[in-house]
Structures are given as structure tokens and as C-alpha cells.
């Protein structure tokens, strides 16, 4: 029995995942305000007590040691939640939105979590993806799978307009440039009649090789909400994006990005091309945001300039800070909190931004590294240096 409660065992990670899955299911299911409040407060207290008991650290160690089974457990958990709400539109829509927003935040994380390129126009790049869908899927025969890729390419391409000013400025000034771009983007949409002006545009549902994602699925007597399609698709995109970001971080490229963020002079002295890696991170991040946006537009069936305000960009940035800059898992947790909590707590709807602001301030005060702080880079999961004495010829290649 005792061996289940050790860091080497996969049990703590899997048990935690199961608990989180059940909790998310309950939370999405809860309707009454007291139930939602109860669950929220219960979760905070439980997490606090578990942390005191050392469980969280144990689960984290177990998670790190059993990456593959833990990742499978997370995927299964999401699918289980989707299965539990198989015929209800709203929880599934929320689930798919969370998955897509995590993709966007992964992109932002590449940009300012790793390379240090601030981007306060995340919602604009997401919006470029949305509008690409609206135009290409609505008015051209281009296959929808390619439309999604085009959404990403469009965001990356339009983002390249910003590369020069972003490379030539730092800190606050670079932030100002992206803010200006975000505002410009929205104003452009509002005055542009071909793109529907302030009323926006309709977007047709997605169709991949005859699979119509906007039709409800029929299995015998059971009818599944069409949003199940989008949950599966978004989950697939997220899984790929997550793996991409993870592998980038655990490679020399991830190291270059970190070095660019931390010390440009040292980078120059050791041959690291600052501009090249900033451009790479900025472009790839925008690409991810654009792809997520184009799926999102086809899921909701409608795009309008009002969905891509500066406030939305700020929310994206706050998710990254809240989750723990540089930690993809932290992003996932933070996105779920930031998107679902206000939807569920109807009475704070009006005060959403206030809540974000307060949450971010509190986190920065008491947990400046975010909910799940980033750890030192681990290039090869599971790899351990050989214990002393076993290493081949200690100083043979010392300094040749």
C-alpha cells in the first residue's frame, strides 16, 4: 500500500488527474451559485491542505517521472468530461474554447515566456485566424483543413509587419507597439465593409473530408452534441502544439530563446543571433494563435471586431502570468480558471476584468512565479547524470 504513495509510483499523478477530472466535471455541471461557490472554496481549501500534507510535491514528482502515462491520463480526462456532457451544448463549447485558448497562450508563452518578446496583441492574432476562416471558408472552395493552416499563416504573415519595430525596441516600447497594432486591427475591422464592419461575418461550420463538424452525431438512440467534434479537434491541435512547445523548450533552441530573453549582450558575445530567435518565436507564436482562431470561428459560426479588443489581449497575457511564465501546464490550469470561473459565477460577470486584475495582483504579490512555476530545464525527461565514479575517464576530455 505504502509504495503507491511514493514519488517513483505513477499513482499520485494518476490519482490527482482523476480527482481533477471529477472536479472539472462537477464544476461544469454545477448550476446553482451556492454549489459553484462551494466547489471553488472547497478546491482552494483542499489544494492548500494537500500542499501542507506534501501531496502536491509528491504528485508533481510522480508526474515528471511518468510523463507518458500522465499525459495519456490528461487526454482521457478531457475526453471523459466531453463524454459526460455528450448532449449539452454549453459545457462542451466552454471546454473546446478552453482548449483553443490554451493553444493561443502556448503561442504567447513562446513569445514572451521564452524569447521575451512582449505581445499585447494576442487577441488580434487570434482574430486574424478567425477572419481568415470567415473569408476563406465562406467565400472560397478551399478545404477547411487548409483554411486552418491558412489562418495560422495569415497571423504569422501579418505579424511579420511588426517584426522590425519589435526588434528595434525593448520592454515598454515594444509593448506599446503591440498594443497599437491590436487597436489598429480592431479599428480596421470596424471600418472595413468587405469584412462586415462592426456587424462582423458569418462563418460556415467546418467540414473535413466529408466529416461535417456542425452536425450532431447520431449513435443509435444517442445523439451527441456537435461540439463534441470540436472538442476532439481542439484537443488534437492542443496536443500537437503542446508537444511542439515542450520539445522546443527541451532543446538547444529553447535555450537560445531563454538566453535572448535574459541577456542580449551575453548572447552576442557567444554567437547567438538575437534577431533570428526573436523572429522565430514571434512568428511561431502568432501561427499557433491564428490556427486556434480559425477553428474557433468555425465553431462559433460568427466573428465580429468586438471579440478582439485590447481587453481580450490583456486576459491572454494575464493567463500566461497567472499560470507561471514558461510552464505549459500552468497555462492550461490558468486558462481553465480564467475562462470557466466567470462563466459559472454569473454574479461577477460585470466585474470580470476586475477579478482578473485582482487575481493577477494577488498572484504577483504572493506567488510571483505563477501557480505552477517553471522548473530548471530538463532536456531529456527521465535522464539522470551518472553517479560519481561511474563516469568514463573523469578528466580525459577535460579541456582539450
Amino acid at each position, binding site marked *: 500500500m505504502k509504495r503507491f504513495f511514493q514519488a517513483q509510483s505513477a499513482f499520485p499523478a494518476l490519482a490527482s488527474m482523476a480527482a481533477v477530472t471529477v472536479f472539472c466535471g462537477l464544476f461544469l455541471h454545477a448550476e446553482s451559485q451556492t454549489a459553484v461557490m462551494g466547489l471553488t472554496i472547497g478546491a482552494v481549501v483542499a489544494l492548500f491542505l494537500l500542499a501542507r500534507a506534501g501531496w502536491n510535491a509528491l504528485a508533481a514528482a510522480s508526474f515528471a517521472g511518468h510523463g507518458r502515462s500522465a499525459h495519456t491520463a490528461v487526454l482521457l480526462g478531457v475526453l471523459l468530461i466531453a463524454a459526460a456532457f455528450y448532449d449539452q451544448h454549453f459545457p462542451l463549447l466552454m471546454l473546446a474554447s478552453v482548449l483553443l485558448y490554451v493553444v493561443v497562450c502556448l503561442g504567447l508563452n513562446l513569445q514572451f515566456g521564452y524569447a521575451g518578446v512582449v505581445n499585447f496583441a494576442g487577441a488580434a492574432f487570434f482574430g486574424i485566424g478567425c477572419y481568415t476562416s470567415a473569408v476563406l471558408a465562406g467565400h472560397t472552395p478551399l478545404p477547411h483543413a487548409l483554411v486552418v493552416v491558412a489562418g495560422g499563416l495569415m497571423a504569422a504573415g501579418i505579424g511579420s509587419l511588426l517584426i522590425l519595430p519589435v526588434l528595434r525596441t525593448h520592454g515598454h516600447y515594444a509593448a506599446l507597439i503591440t498594443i497599437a497594432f491590436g487597436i489598429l486591427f480592431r479599428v480596421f475591422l470596424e471600418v472595413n465593409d468587405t469584412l462586415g464592419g462592426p456587424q462582423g461575418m458569418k462563418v460556415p461550420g467546418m467540414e473535413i473530408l466529408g466529416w461535417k463538424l456542425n452536425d450532431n452525431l447520431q449513435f443509435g438512440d444517442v445523439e451527441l452534441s456537435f461540439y463534441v467534434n470540436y472538442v476532439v479537434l481542439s484537443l488534437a491541435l492542443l496536443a500537437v502544439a503542446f508537444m511542439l512547445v515542450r520539445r522546443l523548450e527541451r532543446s*538547444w533552441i529553447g535555450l*537560445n530563446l531563454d538566453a535572448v530573453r535574459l*541577456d542580449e549582450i551575453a548572447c552576442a558575445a557567444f554567437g547567438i543571433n538575437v534577431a533570428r530567435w526573436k523572429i522565430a518565436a514571434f512568428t511561431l507564436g502568432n501561427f499557433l494563435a491564428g490556427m486556434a482562431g480559425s477553428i474557433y470561428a468555425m465553431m462559433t459560426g460568427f466573428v465580429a471586431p468586438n471579440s478582439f479588443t485590447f481587453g481580450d489581449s490583456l486576459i491572454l497575457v494575464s493567463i500566461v502570468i497567472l499560470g507561471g511564465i514558461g510552464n505549459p501546464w500552468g497555462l492550461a490550469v490558468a486558462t481553465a480558471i480564467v475562462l470557466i470561473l466567470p462563466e459559472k459565477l454569473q454574479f461577477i460577470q460585470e466585474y470580470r476584468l476586475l477579478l482578473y486584475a485582482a487575481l493577477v495582483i494577488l498572484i504577483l504579490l504572493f506567488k510571483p512565479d505563477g501557480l505552477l512555476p517553471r522548473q530548471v530545464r*530538463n532536456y*531529456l525527461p527521465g535522464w539522470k547524470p551518472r553517479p560519481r565514479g561511474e563516469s568514463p575517464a573523469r578528466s580525459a576530455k*577535460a579541456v582539450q
Partner: protein
Amino acid sequence: MSTLLACDDLSMRFGGVVALNQLSLSVNEGEILGLIGPNGSGKTTFFNVITGIYQASEGRVDYRGLDLARMSAQEIYRAGVTRTFQRSRLCLPLSIFDNLMIGNHRRLNHGLWFNLVRRAAFRAQFEEQYAQALALVRTFSESLGERLFEAAGSVNMIDRRRIEICRALISEPTLLLLDEPSAGMTHEETRELMDDILIVREHMPGLAVIIIEHEMNVIERITDRCIVLNYGQKICEGPYAEVAADRQVQEAYLGTE
């Protein structure tokens, strides 16, 4: 012994301020050259010019047939010139190993395909680099070798300096520039560090070192030759004992009566 680096009439002006004034000097292969002079005499500017951080206003820096004064910092690094900084420029949140690999940039594969997809090949390169980093760090400090995957910010001052020197050495340069390695350290720590540098020199016989230093006993102990700068000009050159006895040098440091 042949000349590795030769500066010819090198000048650096910032507006009206002349930081380097027609400086000519040379470094031989395998030599440890001390660069001394009062504050503001242009020592660090000299490093910044030959490592490409500043573009020289005039003059040439001849290094193995290349003119460093016309090259970018990245090209100069790839040509085998590395340095440490007067104020530590380590990336403190990153691990010690990460910091060393920043210095190892020219020997790592940065291809997208290699890093993302060919993980087995990446693993092989990683293990090879780890073994080398470990061996190098252990010539400086045994205990530091066991902490390679801890944040660089978690170690003390002397170990940070060691990491900085290792970072500059790991790519096997031919010219190493040390900018005041003893700054902020006690005499005892400085002595340890100098021992380390002498050990490194034994392992890498071709390595030439230019060291900027204010601790005269360090200069006396490890340099083969010294150059004294004042107001961006060379005022004296020779072995330490000779330089220390020079009247002009004493005046530059202590002032005239």
C-alpha cells in the same frame, strides 16, 4: 612564438571622448597578457572593441588573417575569441549547464528538425556535451560538477565567476579575455581562481589570455607580460617587475607630486 592578435592604431571615440587613442599592441599564442591601468583608461573598451560589441572608429585588429574591427560579435565568437564580463552576465534563472551551453553555441546543432524530431541524435549530442561540461567544471571545482542542473543563481560569487570562465572556455577558444575576474571576491577566493586559470592553461597550451586586473599580486603571479593603459594610450609594456618600477606608470596610478 607567433603573434595571435595585433592591434594597429586602434581608436575608439564616443562623441568627443577618446576612449582608445591609436593603440597598438600584440598578443602571442599561448601568452597571458596583463592589461592594467587606472579606472577609465580604456581597458574594458578595448575588450568591447575586439569582441565586436563596439565598432572601432579607426584602426585594425589583426587576428589569424581576420580584421576583428570589421566583424560582428557573433563572427568574432565563431573565430575563437571569448570573454567574461566585469559584472557577471550569467543567466541566473537558468541552470549552470544551460549557462555553459550558451557559451558552447558554435558547437551545438540548432536546426529545427534536429532539435524537434531527431531526439535520439539530440540525446547523443546532449550526453557528449554533458560529459565535456562536467569534465571542464571539475577542473575548477569538484562540488560544482554535482550541481550542474541547479539554477546558476543558487551558487555563491566565486562559483558564478568559475561558471563564467567555464562558459568562455567550453567552446575551446584560442583567445580568452578576462575582464577583472577578481572583482567582488576576497583575496583567498581570488587566489583559488588564479590557481584554476593556471590549471586551465596547462590543459590548453595554445590558449592566449588577456586579463584586466586591479589586483597587482594576481598580475604579478600569472602574467607573462603587461601593458599599461592611460587615457586610452599605451604608456608602458614589459614584464610586471619592469612595469611596476616605471615612473610613468606610478604617476598614472598615484598622480604626480
